[in-house]
């Protein structure tokens, strides 16, 4: 695996795991795992042979009790290794979800009962709350269940869920996750789900393997395993039949040893753990999958729809230059920009202030300028601005940075120093909106705006009292490492498509910068639905992220929909995964994890089957050694008569714990094409699967004969 996905710490082998693994040895609990069930059945048969060899007279050489005991023990250990891996995987899943479980502990909440003119607060246990109930949350309270803010603004600590340490501001309409804690102020919230539907519960259901339904791919692999088990059962029964009818004198225990060696015990033992740990790994990335199926589907993604903002860029643009129109100076543009952004708290606004400050374009007499009105950004006009009147209390010191700026006022500022100066109205915003409001746009307006746009950057026009001064050049800021990630998924044959509200030239520039060939500019959230459908019509598997209500239809039809936890309830319900950290770039990790899960399952299956070749060569020469000594020629490993069977069986058992780490952390891989992954893994686990047991069995044989 590349560095993007951190290695998983798997659960330690502790007392409770061991106890759990021993409890799982009960034949009843093994019923869901046919391979291991049969292995245990074989243990009982050989154990019976050890106790009462006479009962198996024609197929048991009496007097070899010790041998039967050895074989029986190894068989039992084989089964135990399997239950141990199950127990470990489940322990791991429980550990990672442990924090959630703690959060789920019952809390007493203040349920609000509203009547006509009054409302009462009733202390209610969280598990008695239901969807639609109102709850009052005060400083220090824990959010009982996922809910929506109705009234109030407060800071909420979500660190236990998202890992983000800074408290988050929550206002009406925002979503609260069950388990987060109010750290200031008071909120009235409405419970948005029934207690059993909360994400925590979904997550806990997912990790409890007993309740986890098999994914389609797991089902298919299980069918292969049952098929192979059927084939090997036929083989062993036929060998037994031939041994009896032809008088070949095979010992039942040796046949059973061959049987168990041939059975796909390795993958049979590890299959549940592989699926479970895949989901655990996803959870360690703070992503909650609603089903295992969604994780596998992610591995199949042909197309990933990436929102530009938040995924490719950090979500804001930074001002990098002031370009004046003819007749104005850079300073005029810069100072106007500064003033217009003084109350603009968006990252873009802040970057404008910073640029002005760095360039020294801070208006003179800033503290004496009166402010009369602030126009917040409006989606309709796509502009924002300020109107500065005569009021003297303009601008109080608001923080250290602004204080510093004030001290740096330049004395040769152009701005009026007259108290009687007229109202100043500065508007900044989308060039076409600004242009529309101008009385006579400067001749070079379009040329300057287009030049900026042509470079793929965003022009923001600025006007003062109806005259355009110039343009602020804004540039998108790429997320660190995003270029490499996109290159990675492209290498794996997945098509990234960038969705952005930007105009085409800007979109093209960003796309080009990170290596994306396809982008949809000027897209509205509703367009995602059409894009998903268009791709699906061509039978492609589409993965996407979404947060807003507008995204919900697209999330619902997309094969893999990753919703942001910060997003709306509708989006989260429509998606099949939710990222608790609300980091859209993680869609790429989800795809890689899905691939890793499938790869691991295939690798262990292939390895398990390929192992059988060597086991034949170990055991076949021995089975009929009494009557057909010539088959000794197949004993290419030169194993001892007795130790051959034991060596093969021991190897067969030891492979399971040796592969537990692989099952838990997944097959490592570097992003590369489907075919090269296929060939590389086919070589490593196929050829390796043939060669390794020859070496392993021989080593065990040497060890056994040394003892």
């Amino acid at each position, binding site marked *: 695996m590349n560095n993007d996905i951190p290695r998983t710490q798997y659960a330690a082998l502790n007392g409770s795991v061991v106890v759990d693994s021993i409890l799982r040895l009960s034949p009843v609990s093994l019923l869901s795992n046919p391979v291991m069930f049969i292995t245990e059945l074989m243990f009982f048969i050989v154990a019976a042979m050890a106790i009462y060899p006479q009962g198996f007279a024609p197929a048991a050489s009496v007097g070899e009790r010790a041998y039967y005991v050895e074989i029986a023990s190894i068989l039992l250990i084989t089964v135990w290794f399997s239950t141990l891996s199950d127990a470990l995987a489940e322990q791991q899943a429980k550990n990672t979800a442990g924090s959630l479980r703690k959060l789920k502990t019952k809390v007493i909440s203040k349920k609000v009962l509203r009547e006509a003119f009054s409302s009462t607060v009733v202390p209610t246990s969280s598990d008695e709350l239901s969807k639609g109930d109102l709850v009052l949350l005060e400083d220090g309270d824990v959010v009982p269940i996922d809910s929506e803010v109705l009234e109030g603004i407060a800071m909420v600590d979500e660190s236990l869920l998202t890992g983000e340490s800074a408290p988050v501001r929550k206002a009406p309409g925002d979503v609260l996750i069950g388990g987060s804690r109010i750290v200031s102020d008071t909120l009235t919230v409405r419970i948005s789900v029934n207690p059993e539907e909360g994400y925590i519960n979904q997550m806990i259901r997912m990790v409890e393997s007993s309740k986890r339904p098999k994914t389609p791919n797991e089902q298919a692999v299980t069918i292969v395993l049952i098929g192979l088990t059927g084939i090997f059962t036929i083989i062993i029964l036929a060998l037994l039949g031939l041994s009896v009818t032809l008088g070949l004198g095979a010992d039942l225990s040796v046949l059973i040893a061959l049987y168990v060696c041939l059975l796909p015990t390795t993958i049979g033992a590890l299959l549940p753990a592989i699926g479970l740990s895949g989901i655990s790994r996803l959870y360690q990335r703070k992503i909650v999958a609603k089903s295992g199926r969604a994780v596998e589907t992610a591995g199949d993604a042909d197309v990933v729809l990436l929102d530009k903002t938040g995924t490719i860029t950090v979500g804001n643009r930074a001002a990098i230059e002031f370009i004046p129109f003819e007749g104005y100076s850079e300073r005029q543009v810069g100072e106007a920009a500064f003033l217009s952004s003084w109350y603009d708290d968006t990252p873009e606004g802040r970057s404008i202030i910073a640029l002005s400050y760095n360039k020294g374009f801070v208006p003179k007499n800033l503290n004496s300028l009166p402010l009369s009105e602030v126009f917040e950004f409006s989606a309709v006009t796509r502009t924002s601005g300020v109107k500065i009147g005569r009021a003297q209390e303009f601008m109080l010191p608001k923080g250290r940075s602004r204080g510093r700026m004030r001290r740096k006022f330049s004395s040769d500022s152009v701005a009026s120093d007259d108290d009687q100066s007229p109202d100043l109205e500065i508007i900044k915003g989308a060039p076409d909106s600004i242009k529309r409001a101008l009385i006579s746009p400067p001749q070079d307006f379009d040329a300057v705006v287009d030049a900026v746009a042509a470079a793929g950057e965003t022009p923001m026009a600025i006007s003062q009292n109806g005259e355009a001064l110039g343009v602020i050049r804004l540039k998108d800021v790429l997320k660190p490492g995003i270029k490499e990630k996109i290159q990675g998924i492209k290498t794996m044959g997945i098509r990234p498509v960038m969705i952005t509200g930007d105009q085409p030239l800007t979109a093209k520039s960003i796309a080009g910068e990170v290596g994306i060939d396809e982008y949809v500019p000027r897209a509205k959230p509703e367009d995602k639905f059409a894009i998903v459908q268009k791709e699906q019509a061509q*039978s492609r598997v589409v993965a996407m992220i979404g947060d807003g209500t507008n995204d919900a239809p697209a999330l619902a039809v997309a094969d893999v929909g990753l919703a942001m936890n910060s997003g709306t309830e509708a989006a989260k319900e429509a998606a099949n995964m939710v990222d608790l950290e609300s980091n859209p770039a993680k869609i790429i990790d989800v795809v890689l994890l899905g691939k890793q899960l499938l790869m691991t399952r295939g690798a262990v299956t292939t390895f398990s089957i390929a192992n059988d070749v060597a086991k034949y060569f170990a055991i076949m020469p021995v089975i009929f050694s009494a009557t057909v000594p*010539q088959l000794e020629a197949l004993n290419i490993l030169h194993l001892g008569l007795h130790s051959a069977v034991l060596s093969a069986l021991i190897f067969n058992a030891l492979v399971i714990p040796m592969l537990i780490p692989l099952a838990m952390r997944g097959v490592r891989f570097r992003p590369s094409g*489907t075919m090269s992954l296929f060939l590389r*893994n086919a070589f490593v686990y196929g050829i390796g699967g043939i060669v390794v047991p020859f070496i392993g069995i021989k080593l065990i044989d040497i060890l056994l004969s040394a003892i």
Partner: protein
Amino acid sequence: MIDAIQAAYVVAILGAAIFSGWLLAPYVVGVYNRSPGRLDRFLDPLENLIYRVVGADPAHTMDWKQYFLAALLVNIVQMAIAAFILLFQGSLPLNPQGFSGLSWDLTFNTVVSIATNTNLQHYNGETTLSYLSQMSAIQFLQFTSAATGLCAAVAFVRGLTNGSRDMGNFYVDFVRSITRILIPLCFVAALVFVALGVPQTLGGYVTVKTIEGASQTILVGPVASLVSIMQIGTNGGGYYGANSAYPFQNPNPQSDILEIFLMLLLPTTLCFVYGLMLGKKRETRPVLFGAYALFAIDLIIAFIPTSTLNSGMEVRFAGFWSAFWTVVTTAVTTGSVNSTLASQHPLVVLSAFMGMLIQSTPGGIGAGLMYMVMYAVITVFIVGLMSGRTPEYLGFKIRSRDVLLVMSAFLIHPLIILVPTVLAYATGAASTIGLGTNSLGFTQVLYEFTSAAANNGSDFLGSMADTPFFNVSTGVVMFLGRYAPMGLLLALSGSVIGRKRSPESGLKTDTIAFTAVLVGSIMILVVLTFFPFLALGPILSYFQGNVNGLG
């Protein structure tokens, strides 16, 4: 080992089969796509007449169940007709030698054997069957079983083809297989065989006084017409008990080469048909190269020892051509022989087993292709998972039901080989006909059921196995070995119809790299399944030093 000239012959014959298959494939595709062709002028009216007479609507299309059921029922009625002829040949015309009817169990075995494209022969034709039986029971079923194989494969490929809506119409495919592919090819081949010395007469056996004055019966009959379809149709059931070792069936090296070529022709052609019909020519690669790579492995095993002329061979074919034939006849599961199996080195027999256990090297007509796709699906599923995507073949995702179908189809083979093999010993049926409990006897019993299950037809036992046990058991095995996998694989193909296909980025199955993995997987699967039994049979024989044949 073989010398350079012999190796050159092998390469030339295989090359000729591949080249001819490539030439013939577009025509075959045209036949099933009902594309206009030069023969339409003569054959359209004839075929339309047939459809009208039998009441089949050529415009009607079938789903997989209807298609399979039609094939199965037509085959069963054909078996019934042939059974009637065999049972009552004594009272029917064209019986100059006055042979009497066959026993019920031999009749059952024979009709199932020929109709399933197996041609396991528990009788010696020249001393058992009338001319009518040879023509209207044996040759008849040889045509129809080959046609059924072609139909099944074509329907199978139709289902797998992206955008297809149905499996086609069995009756139309069946009639066109016969009128446009089998009869034209067989007619030309039969005349060449006659020219090379294969008799074709209804005049009855000729009795002559030899030079030394003894009386000799020359067993002539309608042989050439049978030899052509038995080889082209990968049937393998000979006119004579000695099959193509009998000089009238295979008079000289030229006829031998032609017969080897003919049995390779259609199975190889179907590999090309596969890619063409799918609309993905490159998909021919894994099935063709995969089949021939496995075939090459078989040949290498067989040619490790130097086969030398012995009492189970014919002088004109000597060791090399006898061993070569034995490998080819099992590689395409034809089952005709030009020497006795008992005369073959154990490694040649091992190689023959491999052909029958794999069944797609390139395998029998139609069946071979279907098995190769079955292996491809298994390989794509198990090994393909390691590419990090839900396994896809030809763009469709492999679901659990698909896995269930292919695993079942694969599981049938060991089941129907091993269970009756054990039964043959457990019931004493093997010892009744004098088969030992040593490696030689075991090889013969295992071979009998392997050949029956693979619908191959070559055997050690021949008329020795004309006992109720072997007649019935191999009859059942042949029936299951033919129709169970056919039904399961048609079900797979039928379920693919209308399924979403992803257009790109999946596993590229049309590459040499995938082909190599496919070959490796097939070898492992087959070796894992049958290794212990091969070890007790030909491998043990080899270690025991039976290098001059297993006899």
